[in-house]
């Protein structure tokens, strides 16, 4: 059976040139915007108490005393989970396109530009291609484990999404053990890597799987200790509680409020890069050494799941760093009392409340995309580290460094008065801005050395 899809420029879009642009606009803006609006409409009601109040007010039905209370709540959460899973898949796809375009720019080439405007639909085409490909399982492989491995990875990716706050009210569920839960749940991905490496019964896959297990396990230690620094500062494990303990302006972010947190932020980001197997830590799938590492034997949709998990993990990594250190969804100039005032006392909030919620989601999304861009930038700048370098970086530098940050934060939290914290906030923000300005000037100078005084952005 052959199926041809008109996603390339030779067929459908040549006949209907506007179709490609319309499809691109829909996929690029309509889909994510639809998901955000759906999330905003549904997520604020995701506690049994709010549902009770809604049923009471609109339907005159006493849901709280009804035996169907948890069935209604579960059906409601199913919708929430569906939106979250869709968001993951769409982000995983879009970020591959962004990565390839950015890589193209960085290497002075064009990058994907055929399906859709600016090649945007290439991720859809890739997904379709992956599903159409033959799904082979090596004869010598452990069939059950080989089939099960992608699901472990998928679950490990989706679990942290449950507590990742997208906005003031937009979180699937705000657990009181949030950070601890993320540390536990993200370890599921390594089960997928190890199981796929073992089950493939191929040398490359096994080496990749074992390397991956060693790497992800090692880097979980500095990541876990560095993530304790914001917990110490906020005094809670809940993700929303940690964001609420910060403010909208940069000097109110945890990263700038304490010199140890500033260091812990870099330790946490480095460790999460390694946990997500991103270059320079992509040793489990180092293509020049291990063919493709743990997914060398995978093809078709199973490979697609592994790749989607890998790219969508960037959102978790960046979103976690933004939530814990960079102020999360906090909008500058708006505090907790503004949200409470706009929410009012009635059942349905005022339109201004929805506006503020959208603004808070925008803050989170913009910060997270900026950090995702940094991850992509690092990937196309740094070469891969060696295995022994990876191990000594973790255990000889990051683990003692994270311990040091932890102890300094303890002393800092107990002894430094609020005025000192505020002063540190301003000072470190100024320092960061100074470094960024220096960097921008140096980059501008480097560009003008090769390309004259013109930065060519025409490629986009």
């Amino acid at each position, binding site marked *: 059976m052959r199926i041809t899809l008109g996603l390339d420029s030779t067929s459908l879009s040549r006949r209907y040139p506007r179709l490609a642009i319309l499809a691109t606009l829909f996929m690029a803006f309509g889909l994510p915007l639809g998901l955000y609006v759906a999330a905003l409409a549904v997520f604020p009601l995701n506690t049994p108490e709010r549902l009770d109040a809604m049923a009471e007010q609109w339907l005159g039905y006493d849901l709280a005393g009804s035996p169907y209370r948890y069935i209604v709540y579960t059906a409601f959460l199913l919708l929430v989970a*569906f939106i979250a899973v869709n968001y993951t898949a769409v982000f995983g796809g879009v970020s591959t396109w962004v990565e390839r375009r950015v890589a193209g720019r960085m290497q002075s080439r064009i990058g994907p530009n055929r399906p859709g405007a600016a090649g945007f639909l290439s991720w859809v085409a890739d997904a379709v291609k992956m599903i159409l490909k033959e799904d082979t399982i090596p004869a010598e492989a452990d069939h059950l484990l080989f089939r099960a491995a992608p699901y472990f990875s998928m679950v490990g990716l989706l679990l942290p999404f449950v507590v990742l706050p997208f906005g003031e009210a937009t979180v699937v569920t705000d657990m009181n053990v949030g950070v601890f839960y993320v540390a536990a749940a993200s370890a599921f991905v390594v089960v997928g890597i190890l199981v796929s490496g073992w089950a493939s019964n191929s040398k490359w896959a096994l080496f990749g799987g074992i390397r991956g297990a060693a790497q992800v396990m090692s880097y979980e230690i500095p990541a876990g200790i560095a993530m304790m620094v914001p917990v110490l500062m906020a005094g809670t494990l809940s993700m929303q509680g940690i964001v609420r303990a910060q403010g909208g302006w940069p000097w109110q972010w945890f990263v700038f409020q304490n010199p140890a947190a500033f260091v812990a932020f870099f330790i946490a980001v480095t460790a999460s890069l390694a946990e997500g197997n991103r270059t320079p830590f992509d040793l489990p799938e180092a293509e020049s050494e291990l063919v493709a590492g743990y997914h060398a*034997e995978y093809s078709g*949709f199973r490979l697609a799941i592994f790749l989607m998990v890998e790219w969508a993990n960037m959102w978790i990594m960046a979103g976690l760093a933004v939530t814990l250190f960079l102020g999360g969804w906090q909008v500058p100039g708006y505090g907790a009392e503004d949200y409470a005032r706009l929410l009012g006392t009635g059942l349905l909030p005022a339109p201004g409340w929805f506006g503020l919620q959208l603004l808070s989601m925008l803050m989170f999304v913009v910060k997270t995309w900026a950090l995702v861009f940094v991850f992509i930038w690092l990937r196309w700048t740094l070469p891969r580290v060696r295995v022994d370098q990876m191990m000594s970086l973790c255990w000889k530098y990051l683990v003692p460094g994270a311990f040091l940050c932890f102890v300094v934060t303890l002393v800092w939290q107990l002894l430094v008065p609020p005025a000192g914290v505020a002063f540190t906030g301003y000072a470190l923000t100024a320092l960061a801005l100074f470094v960024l300005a220096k960097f921008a000037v140096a980059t501008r100078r480097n560009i003008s050395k090769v390309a004259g005084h013109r930065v060519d952005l025409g490629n986009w």
Partner: protein
Amino acid sequence: MPSDYIAVTLVILVGTVVALQFWALAKFVGERRPSAAKDIAYEAGSDPVGDPRGRFPVRFYPLAILFVVFDIEAAFLYPWAVDFRELSCAGPLRAGICATGISLLGFGAALAFLVVLLVALVYAWRKGVIGWE
């Protein structure tokens, strides 16, 4: 709250269903032409030599033990980290600031715990568990 874990279960469920839907789609539209050569595990183009599940270096084993030690340590530190201000202050907190001095029981005990682990790290380092090559 127990209701939090309904969401966790549902996300696992929906994620698995989405992955299974890819599987069903691939089964329905994907091509399948199995052949003996295709079913051999990849090894450099030639037939695989030996059993891939042979021995592998022992240095992964002490590393796994080290991971267990430090991960459990982190798991113990998390609950302490949440309440450390109340635990480590000798008197009651005033506006989040400890003015009465640091209590040795709450603060010192955690520090002693950390020091024991650092000794373990130094021991592993000297034994060559973490410095490969």
